[in-house]
C-alpha cells in the first residue's frame, strides 16, 4: 500500500535524520520526499511511502513520540 504523510518538524538535522530512520524501522520504501523550510525553526515534509497497511498509522503516531515533530497527518492511502 502507498500512502502520503505530512510531517511538521523542528528545523534540525537530527529531526530529519530521525524521521528517515523511523521510516527505515517501519520497513517502508520511499517513493518521494519533499522537505521545505516553513519558518525560522520549522520544516514541513511530505513523504510518499510504500509498505504494509498497518505501517501508515504506525509511522504517523510513532513520530509523535519524539520531540522533534509538531504534527503528522495521513493525507492519502492508495491500496
Amino acid at each position, binding site marked *: 500500500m502507498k500512502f502520503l504523510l505530512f510531517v511538521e518538524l523542528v528545523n534540525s538535522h537530527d529531526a530529519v535524520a530521525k524521521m528517515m530512520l523511523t521510516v527505515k524501522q517501519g520497513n517502508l520504501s520511499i517513493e518521494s520526499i519533499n522537505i521545505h523550510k516553513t519558518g525560522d525553526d520549522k520544516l514541513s515534509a511530505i513523504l510518499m511511502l510504500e509498505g504494509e497497511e*498497518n505501517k501508515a498509522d504506525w509511522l504517523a503516531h510513532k513520530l509523535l513520540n*519524539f*520531540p522533534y515533530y*509538531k504534527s503528522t497527518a495521513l493525507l492519502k492511502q492508495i491500496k
Partner: protein
Amino acid sequence: MRAADALVKIMEKKGVEYVFGIPGGANMPFYDALRDSDIKSILMRHEQQAAHAAEGYARVKRRPGVCSGTSGPGATNLITGLVDAYMDSSPVVAITGQVVRAFMGTDAFQEADIVGLVLPHIKYAVTVKDPQRVLQEFVNAYNIAAHHRPGPTLLDLPRDVFMEEVEENYDIQPEPLFNRPLPEPDIESIKQAAKLIAEAEKPVLLVGGGAVYSMAGKEILELAEHIAAPIVTTTMGKGAVPEDHPLVLGVVGMHGRVEADLAIVESDLVICIGSRLSDRAIGPAKEFEKNRKTIHIDIDVSEFGKNVRPTVSLPGDARKVLAELVEYTKAIVARRPECQLAKKLREIGEAYEEYMMAMDDGRVLHSWKVVSLLTDAVPPDTIVSTGVGQHQMWAQLFWKNRTPGTWLTSGGLGTMGFGLPAAFGAKAAAPDRIVMNLDGDGSFLMTCQTLACVADYELPVITVIFDNRSLGMVKQWQDMFYNKRYKDVEYNDRTDLVKLSEAFGVEAVRVESYDELLKAVMRAVRTNSALTVDVPVDTGELVFPMVPPGRWLEDVKLPPGFDLSQRIVAAGRMST
C-alpha cells in the same frame, strides 16, 4: 557561572542523586562541577555498565537514572545500554562530552557523532552548541525521558560549552514538545471494551512492562478477580502483580510457563495491558489473532495494530484506563465465581514443577532448583536482576516476584551483561533492600568489573552465577536446531570466578550443594554483604518449556518424558 556548574545545580534541583560514569577529556568540566555538588558520582569501569546501572536505578527509583561518558569511545560505549533502555522503555539520561566546537567535523581526537549514532534508538538526543541552551535542554531531556512512554535521552556537550558563562535560571519548564499531554481514557471505547468482557467466556489478562511502570497491579487484580480471569505476563511485565496470587499463571511466550501459554491458547478474549506484543511473548501474530478478540491498553498509540490488530484499543496510562474499565465492567458484569480455567492450568503448572523437582537425582546442581530455593528463602521485597540466556529463562520460570517492580531483566534487546550493573544501580536506589543478581557465567564475564564498584561504594549486591561453562542458550539452539553441531559455545575451566570476584574485593565462594548455597546466600542477606556465589550447574541442561521460533504457543515443547497430553486435552475442553 560556568555552564557545567549550572548544569549540576539544576540536576540537584531535579533530584538527581547519582551519576554513573567515567570522566575523560571532554566531560572533565562536568566532573569538575560534580566535585562541588551533593550528587554522588560513581566511577564505573566501562560506560556500558554505567548505562545499565542507570537503568537499574531508574526502574527501582521510578525516576530517570543519569550516566555519563566522555567524547568518542566513552560515548560509543554507552550505546548498548542506551539501546537496551530504549527497547525496555527505561528512563535514562546520558550526558556525554564532545570535542570543542571549533574541532567538530574535523575528525578530531576522540570525536564521534554520538547523536547520529544513537538516533535510531533514543527518544531525544542533541548536541548543545549554544551554552545558553544547556539548562533548557537538560530540563527537556530529563522530562521527556520519564514522560509518556519512558526511554533514554542524550545531551552531548562540547567541552568549551561546559566552560562558558551562562545566566543562572533554575525555574525552567520543559518546552511544549517535551511535555505533550498524555492520552486520556476514551469512555466510549472503554464501554465497548466492557461489553467485550461481558460477552467473553474465557478472558485472559496479558500484562506487559507498561503495567509495571504505571504501577497498575491493584487495578489488574481488581479486574481479574471480578471477572475470574487468569493473568499472564510478558518477560517485562513479570512482577506487575504478585506471582503467588492464584490467578497469576506466570510468564507467557517462547520460554514461558506452560500454564500461561495454554491460557492464551484457550482464551477467547485477551486484555493486553502495556505490552508491545512481541514475537517472543505471543508467537506469530496471525495465530494470536485467530479465534480471539483483543483489547489493547497502551500509552503509546503507535503500538495499536503494529503487531496485532486490536478489537478495541484503549489509549492512556494503564492504571488510569484500567480504573475506568473496572468501573464500567462492574456495572454490566456480575462478579464471577472462582476461575476453573486458572485452577486447572495451575494444576498443570504444579505438575510441571513436581516433574522438574523429581528429575533431581542429587548428582548435579540444577538451575531451576537453585532459583526455586532462593526465591523461597530471601525476603519478599528482594530485587532480582538477571543476565541473558538460560539462567534468565530459569529465573523467569521459577522466580516468584511478590512485590511490584522487583524484576530487572533485559527483555527487548537481550543484553548479556545487564544483570550485575543493573543490580548495582538498583542497590544505589534502594540500599536497604536485598538486591540479587542471578547471572550466567557468560553474562557475568561481560560486565564483571562492576564488582569493583560494589566494593568501592559499599553497595552490596549478591551475585549467584549459574556456571555451566558455556553460552548455554546458544548451545541449546545448536542442540535443537543445528543437529548438535556445537561451535564456540563452550568455555575453558581455567577461569576461576571465585578468585576473579575476590580480585575486585568481593567475597566469593564456590558451592557444591544446595545447603551450602543457601547458607552462603542467607548469611549475606542477614549481614547485607556483597557476595559472589559460583554454582556449578548441570552443563547439559536445556530450558523447557520452549515454543520453537515462529511457532504458535500451542506447539510448546515440554521437558522430555513429561507427558501432559491428557491434561492439555482436558484444558482444551474446559470452560470457566
